[in-house]
């Protein structure tokens, strides 16, 4: 579904390329997590996949980014809006300011896609229920807490039913139960098989539990790519400034004290840690 070939991107006025010679393929239905230290290029990759780079930010592109058989650089942002949905890191920046209610905000994207009114109403109601926003439907998006705004931002994109769902730290302001609910919804969407999910996240334990695949960026380059367990258990993550899950940290400490036998992979989830220490 997504294919990058020697893809590089440089913001206007910058000397360095924020993304450098990326080569990767993400299949439809895959739930792919991206991790990296701050400044590694994760958000820029989100912008590149959704066309904001270069169409909004301008700048220089080298190589190719394919969405199916179409080159993203050749598509307009309007063309891309129906195909790729981007949930912004800062939900506040995503709110259109053009609608007075949460319901109107979620409908805004659908109106711009030209859907019939009846379909818009149905989809908005579905997403309000899915994201547990029905009680807030008639409130102004600007009166909501950070966490509530984040759920509205996700709902606005889910309503558009994009083929590629790109989420840049979508749960940073949500409480743990809200975070779990969002991850379950994203997992359900990806398991339907026709939506590709690209998710940037610092909280490794959530990717460990939900992502099929994890890709590591470092200074704009792809440096690791594999299953969630294989990548997240790697000792190299510490050197890359990403850190590791607390389960891996505890297992590593226990291994050094010879309290547990050396596992082939350090645990990255609660269940894996329980199995090691049991």
């Amino acid at each position: 579904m997504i294919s990058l070939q020697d893809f590089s991107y440089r913001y206007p006025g910058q000397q360095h390329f924020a993304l450098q010679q990326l080569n990767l393929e993400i299949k439809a239905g895959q739930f792919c997590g991206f991790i990296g230290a701050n400044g590694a290029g994760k958000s820029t990759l989100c912008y590149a996949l959704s066309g904001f780079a270069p169409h909004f930010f301008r700048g220089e592109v080298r190589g190719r980014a394919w969405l199916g058989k179409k080159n993203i650089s050749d598509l307009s942002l309007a063309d891309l809006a129906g195909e790729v949905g981007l949930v912004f890191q800062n939900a506040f920046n995503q709110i259109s300011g053009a609608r007075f209610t949460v319901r109107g905000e979620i409908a805004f994207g659908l109106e711009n896609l030209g859907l019939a009114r009846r379909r818009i109403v149905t989809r908005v109601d579905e997403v309000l229920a899915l994201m547990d926003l029905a009680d807030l439907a008639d409130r102004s998006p600007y009166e909501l807490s950070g966490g509530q705004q984040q759920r509205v931002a996700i709902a606005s994109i889910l309503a558009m039913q994009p083929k590629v769902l790109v989420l840049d730290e979508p749960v940073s302001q949500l409480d743990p139960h809200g975070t779990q609910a969002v991850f379950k919804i994203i997992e359900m969407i990806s398991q339907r098989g026709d939506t590709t999910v690209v998710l940037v996240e610092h909280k490794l334990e959530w990717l460990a539990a939900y992502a099929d695949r994890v890709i590591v960026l470092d200074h704009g380059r792809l440096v690791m790519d594999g299953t969630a367990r294989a990548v997240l258990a790697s000792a190299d993550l510490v050197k890359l400034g990403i850190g590791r899950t607390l389960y891996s940290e505890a297992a590593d400490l226990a291994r050094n004290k010879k309290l547990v036998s050396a596992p082939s992979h350090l645990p990255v989830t609660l269940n894996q840690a329980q199995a090691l220490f049991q």
Partner: protein
Amino acid sequence: MKVKVERVSFVYHSGVRALDSIDLAISSGETVAIVGENGAGKTTLVKLINGLLRPTAGRVWVGNWDTKDFTTAQLATRVGFLFQNPDEQLFERSVEREVAFGPRNLGFSEAKVKAKTRRALQQVGLLDKAQVNPYDMQPFERKLLALASTLAMDTPVLVFDEPSIGQDAAGRRRIQRILAGLHKLDRTLLLISHDLDFCAQVATRAVVMAGGRLLADGPISKVFSQTELLAQAAVSPPQMVRLAQRLKLPGAPLTPRQFVHTYSAWRNRRKRT
């Protein structure tokens, strides 16, 4: 400096009752984590402490000041506030001007403003970006800049609303070090966070909120081990507590180091019996 909240209720203009008769006393030099689900009233509570909001009923004391008798500007000399969204507090043309704004408005001499600005930028690691426009920075840097602006005001009470959002491992460690340094200086610290593992590293006391009320208040290891109580506030215990509970280990280890210590002691006891 002490902070005291006495029978405080707060109702927004929309009619939403965000706080319902809250009592909370925080001693000078304490680091208190405030946790709870979205909409529990955490941010409303701390906005009453720095005067951005005023109680509908009850009183809020910052030291010997009843907040109803002081302006927000006056309260800013006692309470520093790091907003959840840094974009709500940044407005200057350069990083240096942004950080200097607070101490300058508190009436410090230019030499002191310069020294405080430099020190705060050094603490958050942004000294080399002093002349950069804040809006040319990445979101995680803007959060650190907002933190520097709060630190530069050198207030006895500091409120941090989700300080670790968007930070990588190095950024989280840096913020942990800054909070530990402030604790040593006897500052009173209030920390709102959904990240209980982060709270466990820096706070000694935890307050759990749900539906505008306090559900629990006590030593952090005691509060964070009460799974059922935390569930009422839509909060999960820290990862190490969850692991210890699965293994039926005694106690509530909050960090990997504490967990390994508990596990080692439990294993030795089991071997002996």
